[in-house]
């Protein structure tokens, strides 16, 4: 019987609670908080540094965009530039309609999906920025659209979805 074993440790025994480990782990309090956006520092002079810079890559070809975003991320890792985040924007589908008129009107449809990946960088020094830009520019593949700009609050907000019911309630309250 004793061989079947249940793992009950007697409370009076010194081995009580021998397998406990959760008290050793650091305490994690899951909070739902909005992330801080404005982290810009611009110091003039020789040490001119950009704040958050977004490199946006758009294309119709998904694999191409993903591979290029991976390449840019790895390049920044190797050049020891801090990468904050690398995320994707939602894909946009567009329908292309051809209206050919050769006697009988024909309509050919094509459905195109455009994908966008963003790599966010911090701490780019102004002496190094043009070199990095040139490297990325000369390595961009065909069919890819590059855009490098500074991160603004509008960019951050575009990732979040608006909640119309919440806004209605807030409007009703105030």
């Amino acid at each position, binding site marked *: 019987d004793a061989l079947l074993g249940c793992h009950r440790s007697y409370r009076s025994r010194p081995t009580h609670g021998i397998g406990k480990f959760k008290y050793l782990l650091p305490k994690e309090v899951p909070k739902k908080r909005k992330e801080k956006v404005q982290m810009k520092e611009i110091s003039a002079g020789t040490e001119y540094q950009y704040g958050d810079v977004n490199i946006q890559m758009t294309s119709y070809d998904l694999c191409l965009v993903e591979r290029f975003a991976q390449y840019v991320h790895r390049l920044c890792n190797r050049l020891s530039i801090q990468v904050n985040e690398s995320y994707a924007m939602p894909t946009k589908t567009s329908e292309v309609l051809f209206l050919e008129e050769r006697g009988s009107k024909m309509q*050919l449809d094509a459905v195109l999906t455009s994908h966008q990946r963003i790599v966010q960088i911090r701490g780019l020094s*102004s*002496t190094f*920025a*043009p070199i990095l*830009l*040139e*490297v990325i*520019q*000369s390595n961009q*593949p*065909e069919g890819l659209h590059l855009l490098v700009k500074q991160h603004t609050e509008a960019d951050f907000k575009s990732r979040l979805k608006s909640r119309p019911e919440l806004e209605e309630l807030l409007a009703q309250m105030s």
Partner: protein
Amino acid sequence: SAAARRPWRLFGAMCLLRLPRITQPLEKEEEEVAALMQQVEGELEKSHYSDHEIRKLEEEEQLKRRRESLYDEDEARGKTVIMAQDLEEKWEQKFLQFKAAPRITDADKSNDRTSLNRKLDSNLMLLVKQKIGNQELWLLPQVEWQPGETLRSTAERAMATFLGDHIQAKVLGNAPYGIYKYKFPRAIRTENNVGAKVFFFKAFLQSSDLSQAELKADYLWVTKKELGDYLKSEYLKKVNRFLLD
């Protein structure tokens, strides 16, 4: 103060680049790797089928079923008239009608170095013939620095003097890319004029339309490899340091 005046004269030079328009052809190893990767992703990793491919497979199965057993026509009525196979054939025909622009343009064949249409897969740089001292040399366009202006604006002025004002070129940063300094020959050297330092800046041509008249007639657009034909060796060494291929 006058006593602390430096003996070097400063010049700002602009290296105007036209970015490549097409990608360079792959090397043999690159092509082999690309083929291998496609094979790996397609067969071994079992990449998912796209919508079009799923539709095609379903319709093939339907056709098979119809031929083997005389299938009832009820199912066929609900489906669309156009089959995926027909769509594919239509697309193939359209593709065959499309004619791509040639990669090797006329300027390539005639080796006309003054045109921008040549060598669409590599960077092209502007070289101008300038008179320095009593020699006519091929150089990147340069202009002397005036006190009170930044070196970047000197370089932009150099570009403007040779190509006119409405150039759509983009300078990426304020920092120079390279420096070349040389001393004047002893005959011309004075106390205040020991030599000259040339600072190089880089700019990228945004539009390939140069309809403005060039002020100096002797200009060339050359690639990095052809630079050696025109520039002097010391100058070439310093310029090559900041050129990406």
